[in-house]
């Protein structure tokens, strides 16, 4: 993979700042230069949301194991449309599903701050249990730690999911090819705006709810619609659609050209972004996916998506291009064209 960072991390003097967790380029650089450098192995190098593994005792021709993990640190813990509990199930189920695998089991590690009310913990755990039941992916093992007040933030939940990848399914961020079609399963920015609306200093009223949802059945429907057609699946979470597409462009060594007019954004999401100076392309989603699909099957896959309750707003939003610079570009609704770059730093509300 092309080194994309002009200046290496200043490991000697540098410190973690919020941008390292915002899912943009700083986060990608941290992972590449610090984590990948240390753990280097063929699985991590896949660079996908989940790792595809073989199990020695079992015949790989019957399937492979997929493993994915996500830490959840959201604030506020409860937000319109969900809470950290269901989010922690969906977030990891989706990462397993994005490999094309059927998610089977989850583990959960709770890091709880001293003083956290049991009633809120129960609400979170019940929501998590409901999400896990609904997804059909049980939480089979767990761990609980308590940290002193001021050394945590209510509850952090790290979940890990495993699933089995059926033989023949080959889905990875490395598989996009020029000419492929970009599909998006629905409107973007709902989760991020629902969460922002609860932030004390920004508080606004909206009927927008987080889109948090488990996408594995949608994935199954897409794979069934045109076997072999889906080349890349990715859920555009932190960093939003823009960052996810840039990741894929970089992993596959391609460019992309989006059609702004084709990207569904709810009016309230648009309005909130105007008000705060944000760009919906960079706002987080928790129940959406993008798919890179072979062009000849794009319509079949899109139809399958639209037939699924989590994909009825699905749209063809652009195409993969050959571009040695791996630019994600966008034809604007206005008629111009621009680069859609990685998120740099955190997306902060701004005045100018």
């Amino acid at each position, binding site marked *: 993979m092309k080194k994309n960072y002009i200046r290496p991390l200043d490991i000697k003097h540098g410190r973690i700042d919020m941008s390292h967790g915002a899912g943009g380029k700083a986060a990608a650089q941290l992972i590449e230069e610090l984590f990948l450098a240390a753990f280097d192995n063929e699985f991590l190098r896949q660079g996908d949301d989940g790792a595809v593994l073989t199990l020695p005792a079992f015949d790989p021709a019957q399937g492979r194991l997929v493993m994915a993990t996500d830490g959840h640190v959201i604030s506020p813990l409860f937000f319109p449309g969900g809470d950290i509990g269901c989010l922690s199930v969906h977030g990891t189920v989706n990462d397993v599903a994005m490999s094309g695998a059927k998610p089977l089991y989850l583990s959960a590690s709770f890091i709880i701050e001293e003083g956290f009310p049991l009633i809120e913990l129960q609400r979170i755990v019940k929501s998590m249990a409901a999400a896990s039941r609904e997804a059909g992916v049980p939480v089979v093992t767990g761990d609980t730690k308590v940290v002193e007040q001021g050394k945590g933030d209510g509850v952090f939940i790290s979940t890990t999911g495993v699933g089995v990848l059926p033989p023949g399914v080959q889905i990875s961020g490395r598989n996009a090819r020029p000419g492929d079609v970009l599909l998006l399963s629905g409107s973007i920015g709902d989760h991020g705006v629902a969460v922002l609306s609860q932030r004390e*200093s920004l508080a606004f009223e909206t009927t927008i709810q987080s889109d948090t949802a488990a996408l594995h059945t949608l994935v199954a429907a897409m794979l069934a619609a045109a076997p072999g057609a889906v080349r890349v699946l990715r859920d555009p979470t932190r960093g939003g659609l823009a960052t996810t597409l840039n990741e894929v462009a970089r992993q596959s060594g391609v460019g992309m050209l989006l059609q702004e007019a084709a990207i569904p954004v709810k009016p309230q999401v648009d309005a909130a972004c105007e008000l705060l100076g944000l760009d919906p392309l960079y706002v987080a989603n928790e129940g959406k996916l993008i798919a890179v699909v072979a062009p000849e099957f794009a319509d079949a896959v899109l139809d399958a998506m639209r037939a699924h309750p989590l994909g009825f707003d699905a749209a063809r939003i652009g195409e993969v291009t050959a571009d040695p610079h791996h630019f994600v570009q966008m034809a604007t609704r206005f008629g111009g064209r621009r680069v859609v770059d990685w998120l740099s730093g955190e997306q902060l509300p701004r005045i100018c």
Partner: protein
Amino acid sequence: MKYIDEFRDGDLARQIGARIAAEAHPDRSYSFMEFCGGHTHAISRYGVLELLPPNVRMIHGPGCPVCVLPIGRIDLAIRLALERGAIVCTYGDTMRVPASDSLSLIKAKARGGDIRMVYSAADAMAIARANPQREVVFFAIGFETTTPPTALAIRDAAREGLANFSVLCCHVLTPSAITHILESPEVRQLGTVPIDGFIGPAHVSIVIGSAPYDHFAEEYRKPVVIAGFEPLDVMQAILMLVRQVNEGRAHVENEFTRAVTPEGNLKAQALVSEVFELRPSFEWRGLGEVPYSALKIRESFAAFDAERRFDLNYTPVADNKACECGAILRGVKKPTDCKIFGTVCTPENPVGSCMVSSEGACAAHYTYGRFRDIPIVVTTATEEATP
């Protein structure tokens, strides 16, 4: 959204673009400076440049409050947080502006400074009320648009007796900056920067009105068109400028009549003069010391002036040597003229302030437009999938 969507219509835009192409004389070139970052942002984000004929060139001006904030001012805010233990509240825009010692507010926060992003000056007051035992400083930046809310916060804090609240005032003034550019040797004497006209500020003008620009049109013989920040507003303003140039006129015209009157928002102006007075001189990044170009807090509100309260001494700090921000802000250079543009200086690791705000000339070009610098190789699905 009413009064927004109508002004983003792509079809109309293309038609106005065609009109501009039709009216612009093919045998001359037109250089207009959009003073405001808001216009820069609209031009980049919507791809306005592609609708313009090649002989109409836009020059990005210094109208981004983040971009013109000198390093020494950020240093003051950082020191208040790290050395004086104050809670420093600030708009999100300033968080990543590079300061001395490889710091920025976001990095100072990571070093333990209590630095909080606020959406409004009123939020900073709420933080002061909630932390009566702490000093809370609002690091106030912005042009005339953003000044009235700060003035209101100071007046309200005084009425309420909010003793632990103060403001580090970095508010600057648009007309002085434009004058400064017009007075600069490059523009005035050497002619290296042929500015044929200005697109005048949108939201600044809501507050100060269109009258303050009359002076430029008369004194410097430059056409000015005040325009809204939507892309159609910009297109229309360009067309109006082309027409003035073609007709040899140099008037102040107002494209943004739906929000800008000649006299502006008098209520806001009154409050601003109650709380603030002119600074004799203020350093702008890129422009250097500009006389009477900024505001300071009046003696009568001295208790809320962080500069007095903490006895702050401003120390100017030189920009990175390679950085061309200054020349870019004066319209003398383009982002791509900077040797470190897009290599050492990127939005993740901005070296100069123009790379910080998405309104900054360098950031706007990097983020939205840099594909133009590179030969385009676009193979679309249509080309490849259909034989």
